[in-house]
């Protein structure tokens, strides 16, 4: 069997084609073509959709709807998406950002998928033909999910409340040692009233730092007050080991980098 590309104009038709054995959806190609190039012979057909709606960005009422084929480059340069730009720019080099899509990033195994980490902290909604899912539910079931993601909806955070950090060993751009996204609501005196923290590379996919989120409540962002949150940040993590870093190293440096992000 050789590799074959099937092109559809609608998601519905593509969804049907995807049910065949060996079929994989292709967005920007940065995951699936790479796999085929490396000799993954389980992929025998690639299914793509040319519907221009998948590449649309719609901002209204403090929310954005990102079509699944929207690229990282399109997000990074969009004037109304400044809050998401740092996470989009953290993905790959310029060429990769022109190709890699929002939808693909949701499926990227660690150490990739930095943008999905941001989406997890922002509690995005994942839209498929079969309905809508909170991102957390979607990520948990993504290995068996066969429905094509068509869009991601997310409430745009206020500039001050959202923070993103990707740590790489190669500057300025390299594969993640880890990435962290944090959405923090604070009172005027700086006390944290709500926290949602997502971690990349701390499992095979983005996960939340639930214990740290809880420990931050009622704290001000000072070295002393965030200390308990940092202590608990590694609760429930199972970092990956790859050529970039060992699980041990990732676990060791997580509290350090979380601390830096919170104390910015």
């Amino acid at each position, binding site marked *: 069997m*050789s*590799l*074959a*590309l099937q092109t559809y104009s609608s998601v519905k038709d593509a969804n049907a084609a995807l049910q065949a054995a060996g079929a994989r959806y*292709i967005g*920007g*190609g*940065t995951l699936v*073509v*790479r796999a*085929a*190039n*490396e000799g993954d012979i389980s992929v025998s057909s*690639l299914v*793509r959709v040319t519907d221009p709606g998948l590449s649309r960005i719609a901002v209204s009422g403090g929310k954005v709807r990102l079509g699944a084929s929207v690229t990282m*480059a399109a997000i990074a340069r969009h004037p109304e998406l400044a809050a998401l730009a740092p996470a989009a720019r953290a993905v*790959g*080099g*310029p*060429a*990769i950002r*022109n*190709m890699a899509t929002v939808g693909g990033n949701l499926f990227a195994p660690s150490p990739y998928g930095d943008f999905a980490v941001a989406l997890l902290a922002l509690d995005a909604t994942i839209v498929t033909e079969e309905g809508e899912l909170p991102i957390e539910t979607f990520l948990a079931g993504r290995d068996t999910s066969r429905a094509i993601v068509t869009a991601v909806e997310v409430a745009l955070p206020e500039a001050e409340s959202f923070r993103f950090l990707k740590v790489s060993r190669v500057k*300025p*751009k390299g594969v993640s040692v880890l990435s962290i996204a944090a959405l923090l609501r604070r009172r005027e005196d700086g006390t944290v009233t709500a926290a949602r923290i997502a971690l990349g590379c701390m499992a095979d996919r983005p996960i939340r730092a639930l214990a740290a989120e809880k420990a931050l409540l009622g704290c001000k962002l000072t070295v002393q007050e965030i200390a308990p949150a940092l202590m608990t940040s590694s609760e429930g993590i199972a970092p990956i080991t790859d050529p970039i870093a060992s699980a041990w190293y990732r676990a060791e440096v997580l509290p350090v980098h979380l601390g830096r992000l919170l104390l910015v």
Partner: protein
Amino acid sequence: MAKVPVQFTLNGSEKAEFVESGTTLLNALRDKIGDTSPKGGCHQGTCGACSVIIDGELRLSCLTLAETCGGADIRTTAGLAEGGVLHPLQRAFLDAFATQCGFCTPGMIMAAKVLLDRTPNPSREDVVEALSGNICRCTGYEPIIQAVLLAARANSQNAA
């Protein structure tokens, strides 16, 4: 095996070929069309040696399927020199000793060209960012960064 037609413009010339479905643009350019200036270093989207410009955007030809490029305007380093005269970036790479083994050079020049087309007077940081998807194992990058800055200066002097 199923062959599919692909048709696009390469460095200003019309090209039409039949390729096997699923063929990457890199392989189509190199094996079918005979433009071997994009190089295959990793086929994973990591090294940038296969970088080409498609409709004005930098792309990795190793991860792009040829049949998705119908009607596209594709530019490679092989088409940069005009009438035997080197492009300012090519000149600058020579003058700044920005090549050693040369394998990454065509991809580097493509990445730099996209930068200079949009940002004629880039900062050093702009250059580093623009080249951040391209790996060079020989030079340590500094001469390449200097070459891009040199080409930008040469361009602005020519324009003045």
